[in-house]
């Protein structure tokens, strides 16, 4: 994100909405109810017994669900908030994505509770450029009540932005497949990581080569890697960016359980948390219709 305040006339105009109500005496479309709680728990795989049975409470994090407008739109939205959104739409900022959510729960909600709410526009940022596109952050705060009694507060930040349609990503470079390594790539296509093994002296080797470095024998067979390994060494690539790759990312030299090393991406862990000795497990990443590559996912213990 970077600030671009110069000449941001729209931003100055939007700022004037800070402090204005966004919703006054809004009402939830449904009372808090067991079926919606059950759907939520099913969707999220939440088996907490506190959310079922005669004394059930609603999952506290479900708070915003009770005030959502849904397909039929919001009740209780003010003219000020509609204007703010309208100005953004008119400026091309038609897309919206939520970035922050802060909720405080004063007491649990239970089936039968009828929720009312008031929302205020707390803050509108200046123009910002993000990966998705250029737009404005709008922060609102909602006070949620049941029968006039405060039950929760909810601060919410959205980015309303001018979308930049996604160009298809360039394709990842193709591996060079030749007579010596074709068997390796056939294995990868079948989701098997094959290691070459000298049939004369038993030494495993990678990458694939026509002969054994230990004894010189040209005879070999293969063993399938178990997929277990550790990071022997790594680099983080920041620059230069290559098409089809999204830096920064970690490239590891992985020591496989079978005793050979190979180079590939370390995934499933932020690039700056890759460490020597990190346990990893093989997986196959499908890049496009024609290319699958072996990568290594961090295993946390």
């Amino acid at each position, binding site marked *: 994100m970077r600030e671009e305040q110069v000449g941001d006339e729209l931003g100055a105009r939007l700022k004037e909405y800070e402090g204005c109500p966004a919703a006054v005496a809004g009402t939830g479309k449904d009372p808090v109810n067991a079926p919606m709680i059950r759907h939520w728990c099913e969707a999220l795989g939440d088996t907490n017994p506190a959310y079922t049975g005669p004394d059930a409470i609603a999952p506290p994090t*479900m708070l915003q669900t009770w005030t959502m407008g849904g397909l039929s739109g919001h009740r209780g939205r003010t003219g000020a908030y509609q204007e703010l959104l309208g100005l953004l739409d008119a400026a091309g900022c038609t897309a919206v994505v939520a970035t922050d959510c802060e909720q405080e729960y004063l007491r649990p909600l239970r089936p039968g509770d009828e929720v009312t709410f008031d929302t205020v526009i707390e803050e509108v940022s200046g123009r910002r450029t993000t990966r998705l596109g250029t737009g404005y952050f709008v922060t609102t705060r909602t006070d949620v009540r049941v029968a006039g009694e405060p039950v929760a507060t909810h601060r919410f930040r959205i980015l309303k932005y001018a979308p930049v349609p996604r160009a298809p990503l360039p394709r990842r470079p193709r591996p060079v497949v030749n007579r010596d390594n074709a068997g390796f790539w056939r294995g990868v296509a079948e989701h098997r990581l094959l290691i070459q093994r000298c049939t004369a002296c038993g030494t495993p080797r990678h990458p694939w080569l026509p002969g054994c470095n230990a004894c010189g024998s040209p005879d070999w067979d293969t063993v399938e890697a178990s997929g277990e390994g550790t990071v022997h060494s790594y680099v983080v690539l920041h620059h230069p960016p290559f098409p089809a790759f999204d830096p920064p990312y970690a490239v590891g030299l992985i020591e496989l359980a079978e005793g050979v090393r190979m180079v590939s991406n370390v995934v499933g862990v*932020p*690039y700056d948390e890759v460490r020597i000795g990190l346990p990893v497990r093989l997986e196959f990443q499908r890049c496009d219709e024609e290319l699958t590559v072996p990568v290594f996912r961090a295993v946390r213990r």
Partner: protein
Amino acid sequence: MRAGDRLPPLRIPVTRTLIVAGALASRDFQDVHHDPELARRKGAPDIFMNILTTNGLVGRYVTDHFGPAAVLRKVAIRLGAPNHPGDTMLLTGTVEEVAGDTAVVRVVGANGLGTHVTGTVTVTLPEAGA
């Protein structure tokens, strides 16, 4: 329970079903959470998880660990790299501070693109403080 305690990680396979079911269960009908073509027109490579689902998963992670008597007081999250279908999110948590029966847990959800969510959860454990 002490400051510095780590919660066991929770691995969430980010399936298309989870993204769509979570969006609908939270009454969020924004097209970017269920329609891949419209998501691409809005600059995303595919549909992505809505913030309410992430919020719910962060809450679930903490209550799964502390049990049904744990009471969530506060959940504050910030989203980073989106959760797209086919990814895996690994939730990890550390107890940051403990005061009486209340703990603040710092939660991070990492996916293949980077950090999807960072946040703090304030939770009260009725038995712990007594």
